C-alpha cells in the first residue's frame, strides 16, 4: 500500500486526478502552440532568410532524419554520439565526485590542505581548457575531459558540503551496536548524502550537455549534435542549427525527468513540503 507523508493511503489515480493531468497536458500543448505562433510572427516581421522558421525547422528534422546531413550522418547518429560522450564524461565525474567528495568530506584535513589548488581550478571554465585539451589529448578523451570538467565540481562540492550535516546520533547508533568505520559510511553517511549526490548529479548533467558543443568543437569527428550545429553554422543554415539545439534541449530535459523519477522513488521516505 502506498502512503503519503501523513501516513494515509494514496488512492490509485482517481478520476479527478486524471482530469487534472489531461488539463495540464492540454495547457502545455497550448504553450507550445503559442510559442510557435509568436515565433512565426517574429519571422514575418524580421524579413530575413537567415532567421529559422518553424516550418523550416520541421523540414530540417525530416530531412536530417531520413537523408542525414550533407555527409550522410543521420540525426540519430548525431544524437547517439553526443549521448554516449555526455554519459561517459558525466559517469566519470559522478564516480570521481562521489569518491573524492566522500574522502575529503570525511577527512576535512585533506580538503583543507588541497583547497588552494582545488578551489581555483573549480573557477576555470571548461571552455578555457580547450586549447590544453587540443594539445594534450586526442579522440574520445577530449570529449570526456571537457564534459568531466563541467560535471565533476557540482557533484564533488555538493557531497563535500553535505557530509558535515550527517546526523551524529545515527553515527553513534551504528557505533554503539558494534559497527566499524566502514559500517558508519555504508549505513549512515552514504544513505544520508544520496539526496545531495542526486541533486549534484542533476546540476552536473545539465552542465554536461552545456559542454557538449564546446567538446565537439575540438573532437575531430564529424558526428555529434554539437558538430551538427557547427557544420551548419559554417553554411549559415539556421534551421538545421536549431534542430541540433532543440535535440540537445530535449535530451537534457528527458534525462532530467528520468533523474527526478529516480529521486522520487529513492527518497520516498522524505517529507516533501508544499506551501
Amino acid at each position: 500500500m502506498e502512503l503519503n507523508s501523513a501516513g494515509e493511503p494514496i488512492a490509485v489515480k482517481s478520476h479527478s486526478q486524471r482530469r487534472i493531468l489531461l488539463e495540464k497536458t492540454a495547457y502545455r500543448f497550448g504553450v507550445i502552440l503559442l510559442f510557435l505562433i509568436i515565433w512565426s510572427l517574429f519571422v514575418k516581421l524580421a524579413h530575413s532568410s537567415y532567421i529559422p522558421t518553424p516550418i523550416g525547422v520541421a523540414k530540417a528534422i525530416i530531412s536530417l532524419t531520413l537523408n542525414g546531413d550533407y555527409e550522410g550522418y543521420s540525426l540519430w547518429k548525431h544524437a547517439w554520439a553526443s549521448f554516449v560522450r555526455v554519459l561517459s564524461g558525466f559517469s566519470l565525474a559522478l564516480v570521481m565526485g562521489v569518491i573524492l567528495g566522500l574522502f575529503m568530506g570525511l577527512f576535512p584535513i585533506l580538503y583543507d590542505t588541497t583547497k588552494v589548488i582545488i578551489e581555483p581550478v573549480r573557477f576555470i571554465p571548461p571552455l578555457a581548457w580547450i586549447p590544453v585539451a587540443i594539445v594534450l589529448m586526442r579522440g574520445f578523451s577530449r570529449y570526456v575531459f571537457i564534459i568531466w570538467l563541467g560535471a565533476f565540481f557540482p557533484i564533488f562540492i555538493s557531497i563535500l558540503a553535505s557530509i558535515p550535516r550527517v546526523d551524529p546520533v545515527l553515527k553513534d547508533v551504528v557505533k554503539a551496536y558494534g559497527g566499524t568505520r566502514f559500517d558508519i559510511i555504508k549505513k549512515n553517511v552514504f544513505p544520508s548524502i544520496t539526496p545531495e549526490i542526486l541533486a549534484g548529479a542533476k546540476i552536473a548533467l545539465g552542465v554536461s550537455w552545456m559542454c557538449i558543443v564546446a567538446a565537439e568543437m575540438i573532437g575531430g569527428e564529424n558526428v555529434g549534435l554539437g558538430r551538427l550545429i557547427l557544420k551548419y553554422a559554417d553554411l549559415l543554415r539556421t534551421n538545421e542549427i536549431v534542430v541540433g539545439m532543440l535535440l540537445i534541449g530535449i535530451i537534457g530535459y528527458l534525462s532530467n525527468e528520468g533523474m527526478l523519477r529516480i529521486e522520487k522513488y529513492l527518497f520516498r521516505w522524505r517529507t516533501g513540503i508544499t506551501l
Partner: protein
Amino acid sequence: MSYSKPKVEVDVTHSFGDLVVLDQIKFDVHENELLCIVGPSGSGKTTLANIISGLLKPTSGSVKLGNEPVNPRKHNISYVFQARSCFPWRTVKDNIGIALELKGISGAEAEKRMSDVLQIVGLKGFEDYYPNQISGGMKQRVAIARAFCVDSDLLILDEPFGSLDAQTRYLMQSEVLKIWEKMKRTVIFVTNNIEEAVFLADRLVVFSNAPAKIIKEVNVEMPRPRILTHPDFLSIRSAVSRLSDIARDV
C-alpha cells in the same frame, strides 16, 4: 534468550577542558538488574551514558564489563538514545533490523527476532512505514525494539521518554517493564524524573548537580507493578526528592 551477563563496574571522572562534569562516579550494576540514574538535567547523565556505552573515553577511570574495559565491538551493548535515532530512509522494520545487521544476525533468526520484538512493542502492522509516517512515541518504541532484539550484556536507556507527554510516558514505562520482565536484561535507565525512576528501578543512583557526584544509592524494594499513589511509593519518592533538594542547596 537469557544468558549470563557480565557484571558492570563503573568508576569514572570526566571533564571537558576545565569543566568537571563527572566527579568520581562509582557504582556497580548486577546481572539483570534495572538500575536508574536519576539527577537534574545538565548533570552529565548523557555524558555518563556515552562513557558507559564505550562511545566516549573518560578522562580518568574506566567502565568494566566482566573485568574487561567496555568496547562496543567486543561487548553487546544496546543503547536507546535521548535524541531521535531512527534512520529516516529505513522502514520501521529495517530500523530495528540494523542492530541485527551489525551483530551479523540474518535470515530466519533475524526475522523471528524482529517479529517477536515488533509484537512486544506493539508495532505489528507498521513494519513498512517510514519514520516520517509514524508518531514520536512510535519512533521511540522503534529505538526500544532495536535495543531489545539483540542479546545484550548491557542495555542503556538515556531519558528515552523525555519528549513524550505524561500519559504516553506512563504507558511506555509499563511497556518497558513488561519487556524487561519477559526478556531479562541488565539495564541502566537514565532519567531526570524521580517518579519515573522510583516506578522502574530495582535500585537508584541519585546524582547531584554538575559536577555530578553520587549523593546516594537507594534500593527500591517494592513489588511490581508499582502504584504511583501507594504510600510506600510516595515515601520513597519524597525521600529521593529531598536528597536531590539537599544536593541543590549545597
